[in-house]
């Protein structure tokens, strides 16, 4: 099981993957936006998205849980 966490304070612009989706290493899970920059959050291994903790428009803090891949 892998937990994907936010690297910085950001707004959640787009949620690309949904719970139940199968993702591969390097697939985009969500796209964050901070300081006028889009920051894709990528899967660091393949598996199924068992939990998507954020929704579009949310604000995440550094270290916040974004998704769980198992």
């Amino acid at each position, binding site marked *: 099981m892998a937990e994907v966490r936010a690297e*910085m304070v950001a707004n959640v612009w787009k949620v690309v993957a949904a719970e139940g989706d199968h993702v591969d290493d390097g697939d985009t899970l969500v796209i964050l*936006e901070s300081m*006028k*920059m889009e*920051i894709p959050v990528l899967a660091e291994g393949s598996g199924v998205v068992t939990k998507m903790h954020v929704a579009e428009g949310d604000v995440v803090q550094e270290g916040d849980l974004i998704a769980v891949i198992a």
Partner: protein
Amino acid sequence: MFDSVLVANRGEIARRVIRTARRMGVRAVALYSDADADLPYVREADEAVHIGPAPPAQSYLDATAIIEAARKTKAAAVHPGYGFLAENADFARKVAAAGLTWVGPDPAAIEQMGDKIRARNLMEQAGVPVSPGSREPLTDAAAAVAEAARIGYPVMVKAAAGGGGIGMGVASDPTELQAAFETARSRAERFFGSPEILLERFVQHARHVEVQILGLADGTVLALGERDCSVQRRHQKVAEETPSPGVSAALRDRMLDAAVRAGQAVGYRGAGTVECLVDTGTGSFVFLEMNTRLQVEHPVTELVTGIDLVEQQFRIAAGEAPSFDPAAVRPAGHALELRVYAEDPVRFLPSPGTITEWAEPTGPGIRVDAGYQAGNTVTPFYDPLLAKLCAHGADRRQAIERAGRAVAAFAVTGPKTNLPFHAELLASPEFVSGDYDTSLVSRLRST
């Protein structure tokens, strides 16, 4: 001169405009969102108005609320700074319709230059060199592929209504072009509200050199020297200098001359910037775009000319003559600007956070335009610019030495900053040699 001005911006540029206004005895009104109430510019203004929540659409981009704030505070003029509404012709018209003085060019000039395709076509007619590129907007990938075959690869893909490097990409074949086109189009729609794309022949080894122009109240257009902005990451500037070490006296004459023609072609009034690409192989240049506002990196021009560009903007908007003799402008020495961003110095990813320590460098030739101080929080809502660290010297070597000492002395704790990157840049043989191009930063990062 008008007696008061509302500064429709935030951070370092609001503070910089307020400083000149106050020196000239013009009452300065600041705007602030929920995120910016504690920033220095709010305190330094004569008056400050809360404009709305943090997201720009509900604060610094809310034209109606801004004009209402000007009415409420009896401001006589509006200075837009850069970014936000600075190049929004509708806003400029609304300001004028409300009986306020717009500190900027005529809305028609903003419109002509805001559409990059129209601007290219107009410049070509005015005898300003342009690169091979689109004469009509492109909205689908198939048309883009056909157009690229005519222009020749590699091509640069850009939003026609865009700026700030957002969505820009390079493609060297039709497959890459399809992908770059889709990226550019989705970004263009999202950031600029228009899906129109243009293609331009990509210059492989180029310097990004721009000319500062000033359209005076009597219609004269002046060129106040160039700035080299080739130090870029993600197509966005990180450091600038004047004069450009890659521009010969003969090339400078031709560029300044073309910039004046560009300004004359749109009847330009106020401060503007004509951006060009210089091909380092051939020594030729092409027009890129014109920015119809004060430029972020204007301080380097101020340092070598001794001219306060914001003061000239105010004077021109008020219909007055400039404060200097146009025939006697003699740039002296060399100036650098380093943009201090809240971002990590390796991957250049944003790093918001609370500033616990902030100590600016001082010394001969050092100028710091900062938007923050200790205790402020850098939020994710706006661009990552914390401060502009500028160094002026008798020559380039002295400017680099002074900048290097200032970078070492600049202490910021809290958000990560790119100050270590600047230390590295100033020590890199390629930058020091002056013989660099727009891929310098990626070369520094690949070793």
